[in-house]
């Protein structure tokens, strides 16, 4: 039993090691994405700093600082969750582009182990990017974390990661089924999740017909809970109303995403889509 778990972890680590090696070789692109992430987050933070001048609202430094943190929590949390979604979604598309998809799928690696390895690699990258962006942004704008409950925030982030992994595994099915346009479909799903999850605003500003979508997006709860934890120091008991829905989405979406992925793999094998050129 233990030997098997060890063997599976060894197999899963192959994907982590591969992704690290690819990141090193594509280092210039990694810098591009990092700079892009920093600049985007910084731009959002400057919106908060400039808001009193634009709207004529309060210029109380405490309120402005709170607004800066409000937006930064949204943008950096979304960067973290979005990276998980993108990288997992690209699991198939990237391998198809490289031409390695057939070798990965004919290797004696259980699909669960394969996806677990990809999740591991994705989490390492997403966490590294998010920490780097936060550190870089803090050099330019005042980030007041004096009231933050870091433990609650970390629990929420971990929960959000789990919930998003399930969704991301599900979205990786698009490139498996639709070889030409599948990745674009996955990006559209990601964009809709961004819109409805209250990344930069409260979800009650959305049109009434759109708001139900925010209820099913785990990002809504994670970002809301992160704000409670980092702006107001909410402990686990206080973030629980936002924690359990995210946990529930994760508990449903991971097994569901895996089942859908396995079904899609079988379908791809029946229809001949499991190949490099589609």
């Amino acid at each position, binding site marked *: 039993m233990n030997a098997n778990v060890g063997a599976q972890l060894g197999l899963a680590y192959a994907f982590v090691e591969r992704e690290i090696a690819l990141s090193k070789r594509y280092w210039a692109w990694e810098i591009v994405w990092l700079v892009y992430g920093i600049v985007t987050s910084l731009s959002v933070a400057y919106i908060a700093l400039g808001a009193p001048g634009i709207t004529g609202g309060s210029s109380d430094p405490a309120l402005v600082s709170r607004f800066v943190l409000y937006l930064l929590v949204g943008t950096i949390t979304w960067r973290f969750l979005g990276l998980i979604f993108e990288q997992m979604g690209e699991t198939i598309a990237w391998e198809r582009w490289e031409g390695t998809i057939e070798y990965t799928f004919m290797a004696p690696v259980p699909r669960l182990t394969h996806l677990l390895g990809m999740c591991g690699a994705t989490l390492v990258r997403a966490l590294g990017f998010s920490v780097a962006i936060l550190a870089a942004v803090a050099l330019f704008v005042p980030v007041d974390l004096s009231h933050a409950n870091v433990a609650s925030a970390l629990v929420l982030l971990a929960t959000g990661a789990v919930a998003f992994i399930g969704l991301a595994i599900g979205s990786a099915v698009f490139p498996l089924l639709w070889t030409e346009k599948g990745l674009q479909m996955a990006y559209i799903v990601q964009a809709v999740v961004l819109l409805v999850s209250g990344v930069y605003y409260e979800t009650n500003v959305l049109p009434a017909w759109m708001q139900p979508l925010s209820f099913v997006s785990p990002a809504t709860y994670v970002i809301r809970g992160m704000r409670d934890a980092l702006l107001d120091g909410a402990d686990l008991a206080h973030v629980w109303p936002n924690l359990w829905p995210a946990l529930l989405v994760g508990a449903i979406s991971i097994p569901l995403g895996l089942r859908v992925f396995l079904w899609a793999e079988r379908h791809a094998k*029946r229809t001949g889509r499991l190949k490099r050129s589609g």
Partner: protein
Amino acid sequence: MAVQVREAIRTEKKTAALAAFEVRKEFRPAKVTPGGGTNVRAVDDVSLSVWRGEIYGLLGANGSGKSTLIRLFSTLLTPDAGEVRVFGLDIGRDELAVKRLINRVSVEASFFKKLSAMENLVYAGRLYGVAPDESRPKIVSILRRLGIEDRRMREPLEQLSRGMQQKVAIARAFLSTPMLLLLDEPTTGLDIRSKREVQTFVRDLRDEHDATILLTTHDLDEASRLADRIGILHQGRLVAEGTPAELAARHGGGTLEDVFMTLTGRRLEDADATDAERPT
């Protein structure tokens, strides 16, 4: 299960490494034709057996169904009908165990292009449970034997020639010590020298490591040079099978080219040109 199978077949000489029974595979046409397109049968009730330790050459023109068969045997496609067994294991029901016994080299050397040969092969080794400590010296040894210098092993694969990349692909397949090696036109596009090196390596692989090899090719010279038995595939059907001598005796004598022409009504080069549109 794969370990038990390996043990069992060591003690038994006459074992079917690969057995296919009435395998059929159809594809829906890529483009919708006026009036609705009908499915194209890429593999049409093919039955064949490859014995342990044998090199079996599957000869056919482009579009004859060779690659589809290889993809079926390597678990990348599921057959619409029929059964495929690898050392007695069903490729559908015992997929993971079958995967541990096989490996494949395709016509395109598919790698992570920015990674080096060493990085690609260490990764491939890990997928087959070979730890880097074990795989690294083995990789160096195989690649040296295939004529790749040490310094080139650490260069991104996109900087290596097509011939070198194909040799790395063969090294990747060999690294997992497969019991059954599926070679899908491994020498297509290679220069004469690289082609000969690969062919020698394939034969050595069988002789030294008890591997069974299924080789697809549309190169008559390669088929007769390497294969113990040859199957001729034409429009998805296996139209003849035997040793080169048996085929010649059965189909009017002459060369393998003559046999191919007798069976299909065309020369191989002509068939390549006209059948290339069939899905594989």
